[in-house]
């Protein structure tokens, strides 16, 4: 397992990061292998968002390295990003376009069939809003559209920053079901959340930052 993990998963080795003059991430190491989900927990401001953005390659760590399938992410970032889906605090949706149009664009960039978009949005309980401009959706409905983008991406690694924000209990169950399916198919995930993360399948490891 140890070795195959090196080759197939995501690994961070003693990563350090500063924000301003705060040393937020201090020598953190982690590993995620297929079928596993890492749940990042910890109080507000501890650095969960910072860590997820480092793993995604949006922030370069001051020190340490992030490896994907055994190679440094910086070596071929495009290949890494092609296999990763990231959800941040923002939803990355255009207020003037409908959920359908928004996701059609992202799935075109990811090289996924356009046909799947409507079905996935439906699975997220958005049948009634497919054609409305995103600006009129409620906060929870917007979050669901953003989550549908991740589910559509076909990426092996999901990086989700507080995916449950603004979701009702039904929405949370939905996301966990999608996560379970992803893990069961050999996917990986890193999820920052204040709530427990309990998909039916796949193994969740909780990591408390402090």
């Amino acid at each position, binding site marked *: 397992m140890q070795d195959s993990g090196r080759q197939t998963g995501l690994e961070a080795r003693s990563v350090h990061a500063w924000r301003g003059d705060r040393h937020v991430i201090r020598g953190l190491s982690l590993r995620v292998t297929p079928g596993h989900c890492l749940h990042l927990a910890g109080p507000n401001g501890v650095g969960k968002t910072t860590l997820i953005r480092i793993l995604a390659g949006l922030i370069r760590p001051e020190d340490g390295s992030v490896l994907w399938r055994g190679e440094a992410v910086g070596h071929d970032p*495009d290949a890494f990003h092609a*296999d990763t889906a*990231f959800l941040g605090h923002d*939803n*990355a949706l*255009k207020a003037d376009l409908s959920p359908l149009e928004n996701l059609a664009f992202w799935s075109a960039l990811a090289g996924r069939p356009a046909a799947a978009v409507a079905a996935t949005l439906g699975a997220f309980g958005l049948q009634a809003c497919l054609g409305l401009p995103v600006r009129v959706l409620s906060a929870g409905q917007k979050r669901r559209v953003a989550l549908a983008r991740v589910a559509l991406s076909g990426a092996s690694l999901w990086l989700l920053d507080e995916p449950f924000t603004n979701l009702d209990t039904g929405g949370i169950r939905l996301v966990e079901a999608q996560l379970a399916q992803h893990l069961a198919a050999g996917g990986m995930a890193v999820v920052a959340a204040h709530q427990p993360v309990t998909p039916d399948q796949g193994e969740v490891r909780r990591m408390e930052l402090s």
Partner: protein
Amino acid sequence: MTARPGLWRVGMAVYARDLRLAFRRWEQAVQPVVFLLMVATLFPLALSPEAAQLRGVAAGVLWVAALLASLLALEFLFRADHEDGSLEQLVLSGHPLGWLSIFKVLAHWTISGLPLVLVSPVVATSLAVPASALAVVMLSLLLGTGVLSFVGGAAAALTLGVKRGGVLVSVLTLPLVMPALIFGAQAADLAIMGESARGPLLLLLALLVLSVSLAPLAIAAALRIGVE
């Protein structure tokens, strides 16, 4: 993993999305043009009658108005994507960022630069530019607005982390596009005087080629900094 889409398909997807967004609010897509028309109207009003008479003012007014109109629109080239998180997703899309940014800039030019070129004959005629010079005036604006979109795109990308970037974008862009302005106005001026404008037009073309080949690099680097 799925088959990655080809570079052309990706580029066209970006281009098509930005155009669609613009047409979703078409009344805003026409604003640079309206702005151009208004500045071109205001100027003669603000000039003293003797100055307004001069055809020599026409090329200058037209060019400065076009430059300002397209500057105004520049700010939004990347800012909207930055604010709603789309830019992060583009950076993480796994496609070359410089390539994607070319298509974003092209879309921006299609929306804000091209219409300026298309209405310029009307404005020029109203400023007493002879019909024989209209083709050169349009050509100079065609090349010039292209330079402006690419150079300005780099400036817009650089100011992403900054609130109230608007004026800063202009301040960074203006010195860089000064040469384009000089050659463009000179070309228009020569044409109005009935002479050959080949020299300045060639230089404008050179500036365009230069900015198309270098700006995407700068834009990509700046965008990566912007999302950090």
